[in-house]
């Protein structure tokens, strides 16, 4: 069972703070990490390989510094790591990104493609289903469990909605988008880390390695544009007071009465 896992290097947005005076982002010192949903997807792929055989390829599109994350994917156990990097990809929106990644996947042997549900920097959740459409394969989003059938011709997936879940069976090849609950990522063993840095390599692919019309890549291939970005309006804070027990409760009740909630 051969699996391609799409991963993205993202800033750890839980570490980002807003400057309280200017309202701008403080990006200095924010670490880059493998997107959590993608990491769960990679872990799930590795467990499937350990049980059913096959190989796992980690695939990403990004700047050269994303090679560090690709090494981490190798250290976790991926057999291959391919980083798509090229100026031709710059300015890609989700449609252009998915076109490039789908073109790379066409070059690979796969039964299942796994992407994270969404990346914590963009939060779009769009690239996975868009890749599936380009590849003309079915997709199941929001996957929380993956179980192959006896004959390995299909997988049964727990697909989560707001108030319910469904067990869905899909024929291979297919694309699944992973929730972070899909699989808790493993700890890295020092031996694997050593191998990933010393013995294994990250393959760098450019647009020339893909059979694709350049018009669908990068800014040219992106129907959407960012017109502007701005910090979120901040509302002025109310009183902050140090109180315990009875006095604190009285302050809360006063506030509720002032606002006619009581």
């Amino acid at each position, binding site marked *: 069972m051969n699996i391609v896992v799409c991963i993205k290097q993202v800033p750890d947005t839980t570490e980002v703070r807003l400057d309280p005076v200017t309202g701008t982002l403080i990006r200095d010192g924010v670490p880059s990490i493998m997107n959590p949903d993608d990491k769960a997807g990679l872990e799930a792929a590795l467990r499937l390989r350990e049980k059913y055989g096959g190989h796992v390829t980690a695939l990403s599109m990004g700047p050269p510094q994303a090679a560090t994350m690709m090494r981490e994917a190798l250290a976790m156990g991926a057999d291959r790591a391919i980083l798509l990097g090229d100026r031709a990809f710059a300015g890609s929106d989700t449609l252009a990104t998915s076109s490039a990644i789908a073109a790379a996947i066409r070059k690979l042997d796969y039964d299942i493609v796994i992407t994270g549900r969404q990346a914590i920097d963009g939060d779009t959740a*769009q*690239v996975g289903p868009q890749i599936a459409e380009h590849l003309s394969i079915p997709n199941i989003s929001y996957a929380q469990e993956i179980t192959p059938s006896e004959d390995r011709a299909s997988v049964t997936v727990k697909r989560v909605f707001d108030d319910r879940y469904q067990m869905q069976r899909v024929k291979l090849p297919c694309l699944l988008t992973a929730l972070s609950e899909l699989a808790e990522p493993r700890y890295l063993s020092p031996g694997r880390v050593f191998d990933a840095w010393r013995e294994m390599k990250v393959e760098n692919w450019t647009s020339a390695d893909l059979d694709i019309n350049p018009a669908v890549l990068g800014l040219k291939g992106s129907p959407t544009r960012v017109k502007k970005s701005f910090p979120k309006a901040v509302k002025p804070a109310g009183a902050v007071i140090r109180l315990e027990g009875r006095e604190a409760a009285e302050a809360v009740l006063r506030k509720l009465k002032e606002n006619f909630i009581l």
Partner: protein
Amino acid sequence: MSLENIKDYKGIFVFIEMTDGEVADVGLELLGEAGRLAKAAASTVTALVPGDGSVKPYEKLAAYGADRVVYLQNPALGAYATLPYTRALQKAVEELKPEILLFGASPIGRDLAPRLSARLRTGLTADCTGLEIEAASGNLLMTRPAFGGNLMATIVCGEHRPQMATVRPGVMQRAAKKDAQAEILEIPVEIPEEDFAVEILETVMNPPSKLNIREAKVLVSGGRGMASPEGFGILEEIAALLGGTIASSRAAVDAGWQPKDRQVGQTGQTVRPDLYIACGISGAIQHVAGMEESGIIIAINKDENAPIFGIADLGIVGNVNSVLPELKRQLESATA
């Protein structure tokens, strides 16, 4: 796509999500928002409803602002399935050429809309919290939080149609219900064999939870500072006294103290109750993004530097174990 072709695309279309034969709330919210935009752009509102013919909610959609309802019919469209629904909407777009096409940013809309946008090769903006028509160009300005809610970005799709967006549930306002008629158009859809690649084996409802957190007028919400699942007991009691229900931060959900359907924030739900009491919640930006529109925010946290105090109308620097039992007692006397 040439500029001439762009002029052929007209009207604001809304995908209506049906849940167990009922129009999902987000569909009514989108109709309200589409109506507001249509007024600004001198346009009209069309509701797109895929279905198997068993439920046709024409009156309800007209009452909430649809000028026209397009029913896309095939036996395979009874329950949501990615490929058959993509096929139905593809047909509607090709025949009716919408200028704008809106979806709820739900677990269904966020699966269907990207698949459809790739098929149509047009732009899609995810999880919008603000929509406006730009006066000069007539383009849709789609504003959404990015970077974990730290930053807002306004996106345009100027040279492709339809302009597609998913819109965050709970943010837009539904219109007042009115007595109105909509034009009805029923379109049969053919679904090819290849679209039946996914089979639904079983549907399991989550255990019935208390009041939905998006509908509650009062939310008493707990975070890591509640220290244990048992800590939420007193929050339940306080919520009951105030006629509300409990919610939680991601930390409390990740710790397994509360189910996912209680989670407020970027990866949970967006809420705007009249009153939000945050107990032992530090107020990570991801959490704040989901509750900052609440009417009154009261925060109780022992760390005076907790960011939650930055958006609270009243901040109590104190220990939840000291404040909450006393708050419960005083509420009991006040509401007795």
